[in-house]
């Protein structure tokens, strides 16, 4: 049985233009990617800005329409479901949004924000509902007494916790976290990330962790997929990616991580230059004639790379 499998997923955005606003072209935001999530793991999806990470996440949760391909959850293809049928699976896949400011409705009190999914999926009396919301607030480390406050009265980190509490209300199995800390202060990032790890154990959650920051992904993930121009270029366990990177793009990403050790800075710079040179030199080796990325090929049980 597959838990969650994204199979040959393609998401194209139409580009409209001309006099009648006809579709004249497509942006291939996601162009044929396949990935598997195992129960309880954290899968880190990394890549530069605009490579299609958000689009992948939003398509899995049903916010975008898949152009082609399958999203199989518990042996059911979610892309084939009608809206009404999809409602059943909504609970199981939830999302933590990138921007803690716009992802909470500014006109709603915290209790209404966190109770929104409860009101959609279960019928609780107002009293039970309030109990549950207070419990959740406590769980995410916020004062249960502040449930009648508005989002703007909380800090960014606290708001992100409210967003996490909201996602947890319906006991999801999978949480898609789209750069959940990139809008936060560095000092708060670690706090929220560690907290996410804690609740992962407690709720037995599976994360699809989207980020452009390899350092954070290394901290969070069991397995990592490297995305480039809408495709996966390399996929493997954390060790595979960090210790034996095979694709030049992965190497380049790794080389771009700033080195905090000042003594090794020169060495690091040299390595970065080398990698960049190799990227220029061996471009044809890693990309086909049209500059496209090859399909993933297995090179070990856990490690795949896009090479011819």
């Amino acid at each position, binding site marked *: 049985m597959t838990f969650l499998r994204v199979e040959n997923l393609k998401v194209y955005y139409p580009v409209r233009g001309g006099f009648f606003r006809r579709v004249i072209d497509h942006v291939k935001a996601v162009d044929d990617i396949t990935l598997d999530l195992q129960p309880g793991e954290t899968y880190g999806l990394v890549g530069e800005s605009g490579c299609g990470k958000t689009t992948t996440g939003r398509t899995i949760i*049903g916010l975008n329409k898949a152009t082609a391909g399958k999203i199989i959850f518990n042996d059911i293809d979610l892309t084939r479901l009608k809206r009404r049928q999809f409602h059943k699976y909504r609970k199981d896949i939830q999302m933590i949004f990138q921007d803690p400011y716009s992802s909470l409705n500014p006109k709603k009190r915290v209790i209404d924000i966190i109770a929104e999914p409860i009101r959609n999926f279960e019928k609780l009396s107002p009293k039970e509902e309030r109990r549950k919301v207070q419990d959740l607030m406590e769980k995410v480390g916020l004062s249960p*007494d502040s449930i009648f406050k508005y989002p703007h009265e909380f800090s960014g980190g606290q708001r992100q916790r409210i967003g996490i509490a909201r996602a947890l209300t319906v006991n999801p199995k999978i949480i898609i976290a789209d750069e959940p800390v990139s809008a936060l202060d560095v000092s708060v990032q670690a706090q929220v990330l560690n907290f996410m790890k804690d609740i992962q154990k407690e709720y037995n959650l599976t994360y699809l962790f989207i980020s452009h920051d390899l350092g954070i992904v290394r901290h969070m993930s069991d397995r990592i997929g490297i995305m480039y121009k809408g495709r996966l270029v390399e996929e493997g366990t954390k060790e595979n990616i960090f210790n034996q990177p095979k694709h030049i793009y992965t190497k380049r990403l790794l080389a771009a991580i700033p080195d905090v050790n000042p003594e090794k800075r020169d060495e690091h710079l040299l390595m970065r230059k080398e990698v960049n040179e190799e990227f220029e030199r061996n471009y044809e080796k890693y990309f086909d004639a049209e500059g496209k990325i090859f399909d993933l090929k297995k090179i070990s049980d856990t490690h795949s790379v896009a090479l011819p």
Partner: protein
Amino acid sequence: MAAPAVNGNDKEIKFEKSPSGWSIIFRELMKDKLALFSLILFFAIVIYVFVYSMNIGPDQIDRIDLKNKYSPPNSIHWLGTDYGGRDVFNQLIVGARNSLTIAIAITLITSAIGITLGLIAGYFGGLVDNIIMRIIDFILTLPTLMIIIVFVTLVPKFNVLNFILIMSAFYWVGKARLIRSKTLAERELEYVAASKTLGTPNRKIMLFQVLPNLSSIIIVNMTLNLAGNIGIETGLSYLGFGLPEGTPSLGTLISYSRNPVVMEEKIWVWLPAALLILVMMLCINFVGQALKRAADARQRLG
């Protein structure tokens, strides 16, 4: 702020409650004394007009008394009489009621249509949006005022209801466009996406998530619209394309001043109506300004 006190059974829990949108508006009004005074004065006028006009029968307005033509204000006719010896005060009250009824009804109807269609067009976009926008574009190209004037001349039995309907048929488009553009911006915010992933149906997202975020714009727009609609009604009546003679309105009273003799020597016929309009417009605008500030945190007084 109340101190939190949680005990076992949650009967007497005091929560830190934060001010809701309404209390912000209330606070803003309390800070701005002019707006507060305007609001009270406006409601006083409205209530007085509606209550008092219930006691005035049609015969009291229409009764012609040629012996009392153009009598200046006295103890029987507080504001004197017009060319037919009819009591100006009674006409003023009933006229104000008619004008206010028309303005309020048009504001409510156009808002209801405009908000509904604007929300739907902005939220769903695509084909629905296209259809609604084409209808709006079409109505915008029509010479609205001319059609209303033609309509008024053609319809034999023209009354308050007709007037409201014909005006509403044209004046919702501006609202719909405003709401649509705000909804377009609002739906891109992540809380809408979040609501979708939490299983909230579109209809509920529109009404309970997006609409509250437009409420301040809607309130401000409706207030200023009310002033505008009073203006349109009186303007048309003044020009003779509004309500017929038998149905007094503020516009018809003012239109008596088109006669130079009345204009210069029988001031009591038209001046009270003109002043009443001025006062109401000013009141509405002062309140509207305060609401506008309440809607924008950066401009608030307190």
